[in-house]
């Protein structure tokens, strides 16, 4: 009798604990989604009204005049990303190929460690380094310096993802190609990298999405510009920089534009991530 009742008590206790545990995890899961929801909600509430045709087609207006847009910053960001890609993609992809296909165990361990450290370095550090190496030497902020800073951030990101997806390519494909008398470098380029191409592109897109929103490394490299940049050795505007400048200004109209810029930037990065999801959807069926 006593035994029975204690069992019943245990049962109730277990039920309570179970409910508590599942409720806690559920709330935690909600908290994971919450920031993204909050960000979008705030951006839409504050910025949506200022995202209009003029925003994408007009230069910023002088202080005191209402209206204007951020077309120079949007184009500037794209130029910086193009320049960063020209540095980050070849070095990152080829370095990843080296790690996965050629490197000795000791060299690989060192390279991986360095890449992981670089991935953890605060992005402003890259700006400082480029400031010292480029801006001071050439006596001026420039699009080149900004692109270089972003490109250097991309290198370790692309390197590691390229290495990982190339290692996922089953060895049987390498062997099959080599057994046909195909040279090693051709096997790597036309068989291995082709098989891993979706994964490599995914890594590149994720790196672009990451540096596309970087502000700190551009503060004293690209510097920002309220007008069109006609010369890559001059300062250039970038969307995150423009948002930063506008957000810390005392003008309401600039604040609204900062919100609009943030909304455009986040939407762009969100779209890149959706593209990545689409690219990786077929991954399990194509072996990589």
């Amino acid at each position, binding site marked *: 009798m006593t035994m029975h009742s204690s069992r019943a008590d245990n049962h109730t206790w277990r039920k309570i604990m179970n409910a508590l545990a599942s409720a806690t995890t559920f709330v935690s899961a909600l908290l994971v989604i919450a920031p993204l929801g909050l960000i979008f909600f705030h951006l839409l509430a504050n910025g949506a009204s200022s995202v209009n045709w003029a925003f994408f087609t007009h230069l910023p207006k002088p202080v005191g005049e209402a209206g204007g847009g951020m077309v120079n910053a949007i184009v500037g960001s794209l130029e910086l990303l193009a320049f960063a890609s020209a540095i980050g993609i070849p070095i990152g992809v080829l370095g990843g190929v080296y790690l996965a296909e050629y490197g000795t165990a000791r060299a690989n361990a060192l390279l991986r460690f360095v890449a992981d450290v670089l991935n953890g370095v605060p992005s402003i550090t890259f700006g400082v380094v480029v400031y010292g190496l480029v801006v001071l030497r050439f006596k001026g902020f420039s699009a080149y310096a900004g692109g270089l800073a972003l490109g250097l951030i991309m290198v370790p990101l692309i390197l590691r993802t390229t290495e990982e997806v190339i290692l996922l390519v089953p060895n049987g*494909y390498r062997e099959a190609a080599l057994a046909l*008398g195909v040279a090693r470098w051709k096997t790597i380029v036309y068989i291995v990298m082709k098989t891993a191409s979706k994964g490599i592109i995914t890594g590149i897109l994720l790196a672009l999405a990451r540096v596309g929103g970087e502000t700190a490394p551009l503060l004293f490299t690209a510097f920002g510009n309220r007008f069109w940049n006609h010369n890559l050795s001059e300062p250039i505007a970038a969307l995150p920089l423009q948002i930063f400048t506008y957000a810390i200004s005392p003008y309401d109209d600039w604040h609204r534009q900062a919100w609009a810029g943030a909304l455009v930037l986040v939407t762009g990065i969100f779209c890149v991530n959706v593209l990545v999801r689409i690219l990786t959807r077929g991954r399990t069926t194509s072996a990589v």
Partner: protein
Amino acid sequence: MASPDPAVVEHVERPAELSPTTEPAPPLTFQVKNVSIWYGEKRAIDDVTLDIASNAVTAIIGPSGCGKSTFLRCLNRMHELVPKTRVEGRVLLQGEDLYSSTVDPAIVRRRVGMVFQKSNPFPTMSIGENVIIGLRLNGVRNQKFLNERLEKSLRMAALWDEVKDDLHKSGTSLSGGQQQRLCIARALAVEPEVLLMDEPCSALDPIATAKIEELIYELKAQYTIVTVTHNMQQAGRISDFTAFLYMGRLIEFGSTTKIFTNPSQKQTEDYITGRFG
């Protein structure tokens, strides 16, 4: 390899011990002389000497880990893909030393093709592209030549009739047995002299296996074939010569009929009758 001399084929297929000693020795594709292979400190092959006859099927049998695959791969230098390998002794292909310092392993592999245990058509390529990729990557551009070789290779691999309308489809859309025949077609397309097969049927069902075995029988008219197999009955069915390897050593080598009916070594008999391995 050119179309075979019927007299030669007939000679090779005859069990070796019945050949009168006065007849000339069968033409040899490979002469393996005192070959030992190390992976780092581990010796995988220990002083193996044997001759591989042209236009015949030679089967390598033996328990797991006896060095069958390593031996097969040393015939086209594929074992070198594992780091820290070392070879001693000589492997002669038509009299040329494969391991001479002036020999490019890629050229060796063009002459000595290979089919693997697990079929591995390239997943990013169509059936047609899979067959001609070896030629393409070796610099052949002539589309007419590629198309001719595509059909010829698929016909030789007994796959043409099944895929001729689906050449643009993915190679991985085929069944397991078809994929393996596609891999055979891919290996044949670069016109090797020898075909190495590393347990080509071990992942296939009996019907697909029968097709591949039939194909091997037909291909030996034009190619020298060396195959590794775990399946004793298969070695008995398809091969003219059998080599029994155990712990890296060649225990016995001879005509398949002799090895299976009257082996001279106790270990061979024990393995074949299923007492170990």
